[in-house]
């Protein structure tokens, strides 16, 4: 991976206005983790790269949706989150408690959107790179133990995803306390931790309409049925094994 140049805050702002595709950050920068850059003391978020082409997940998810989802929606969350962070920093410096609390909604929404989508891109993989291959070893056994079978888990997640009113996410979560797998839903862009501090996201499926409307129109169940063909169980297994080690 090429070394990423450090951007000044100004050029980051310009860069996001011109919608860069690969300029924002290199996913392989190990020092600062994915999607972060350090400038003048405030660590701002940056749009992570997709490890696959926009069209690589077809026909499960169309290239047009992937492009809009990544370049417009996720980028907007990143930009607005950074703005809110700047305002928060100023409010903290001034000691303005009202402003600090008032900004919490924007931070939860935009920051949550950034966190959730960063996980989502890692949850997806093109079919020819292993997308859709069922989980093996410890995660596979855990799924059989906690849900009966992989089909039962998929059915449960699809049912909860379809029943979710409005916008939100459906998650396969690991409860670190009870060492159990659970299916959870969160509303809007609330991250999984809002449902429980011990919950670790293994898989998240975006059921906001922008994630499927152009292709599946209002038939969310079809989207949920097809997305399993490009789910990256290897990533979920890695996270599971790391958390249960």
């Amino acid at each position, binding site marked *: 991976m090429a070394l990423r140049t450090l951007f000044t805050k100004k050029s980051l702002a310009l860069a996001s206005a011109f919608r860069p595709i690969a300029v924002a950050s290199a996913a392989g920068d190990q020092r600062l983790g994915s999607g972060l850059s350090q400038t003048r003391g405030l660590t701002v978020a940056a749009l992570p790269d997709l490890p696959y082409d926009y069209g690589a997940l077809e026909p499960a998810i169309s290239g047009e949706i992937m492009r*809009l989802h990544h370049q417009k929606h996720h980028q907007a969350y990143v930009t607005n989150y950074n703005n809110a962070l700047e305002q928060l920093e100023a409010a903290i410096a001034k000691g303005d408690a009202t402003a600090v609390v008032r900004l919490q909604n924007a931070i939860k929404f935009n920051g949550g959107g950034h966190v959730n989508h960063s996980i989502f891109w890692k949850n997806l993989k093109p079919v020819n790179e292993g997308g859709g291959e069922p989980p093996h070893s410890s995660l596979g056994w855990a799924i059989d133990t906690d849900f009966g079978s992989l089909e039962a888990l998929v059915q449960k997640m699809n049912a909860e995803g379809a029943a979710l009113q409005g916008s939100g996410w459906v998650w396969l979560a690991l409860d670190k306390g009870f060492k159990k797998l659970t299916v959870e839903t969160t509303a809007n862009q609330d991250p999984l931790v809002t449902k429980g501090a011990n919950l670790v996201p293994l898989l998240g499926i975006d059921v906001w*309409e922008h994630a499927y409307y152009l292709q599946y129109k209002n038939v969310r169940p079809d989207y949920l049925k097809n997305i399993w063909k490009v789910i990256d169980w290897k990533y979920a297994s890695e996270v599971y094994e790391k958390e249960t080690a």
Partner: protein
Amino acid sequence: MAMALPLAYASSVVHPFEAGRLSFSTKATKHKKQIYQFRNVTKVLAYYGLTNPPYKLDALEPYMSRRTLELHWGNIHRGYSDSLNKQLANSPLYGCTMEELIKTTFNNGNPLPEYNNAAEVWNHDFFWESMQPNGGRLPWGGVLDQIEKDFGSFSNFRDEFVHSAMMLFGSGWVWLVLKTNERRLLIVRTSNALCPLVWGDIPIISLDMWEHAYYLDYKDDVSKYVNNFMDHLISWHSATTRMVRAEAFVNLGEPKIPVA
């Protein structure tokens, strides 16, 4: 405004409201038994039909495409209506107008399962009628006066409405309501299916901010959608009609008490 009226079929059951008027004792007990058996009746007791938007599906082009309306009204709105009727087929809720049904099922903040479908059916009816071909531009007469009184100027109101729409996180609606207690117009944002009727307020105009309302036409360009709504779609005719009806319930002016 075209409201979906319930049709109550009850062939072998006496309407509870008429039960008290029966004078013969034997008939009374027999009918009384039948009232409590109404849950065993297999006939549908309440049904809310899907109303059409008051214009052809392509009449709002180019600001809202025919395809969007076909899906939004034909699939989504129709879906809510069908789900509601299916739920009501086995429910003791009947004899209500749409507004009564929404307030009853809202259950003071602990909504019953029928609430979501009922509210969304009503919300979408209200939304279609909040728009018209060749809409937008300025209101006139009493509506304009009230807007200027409560927001300072029409452009203040327009900016606030657009800003409120852009600040909505997630799915929801933006409303211009007449607050019954404060007796003024206000812009409110609600999430998912929440409807200002449940607070006893009177909605005047609504804008659907669920993504399915604009995604096909505008993708992620929400600001263009909202501005087009304000400039080209909003129906001030409907708003005027609704304000006129609202003033039968809310006194907006100081009564002119003649001095003797």
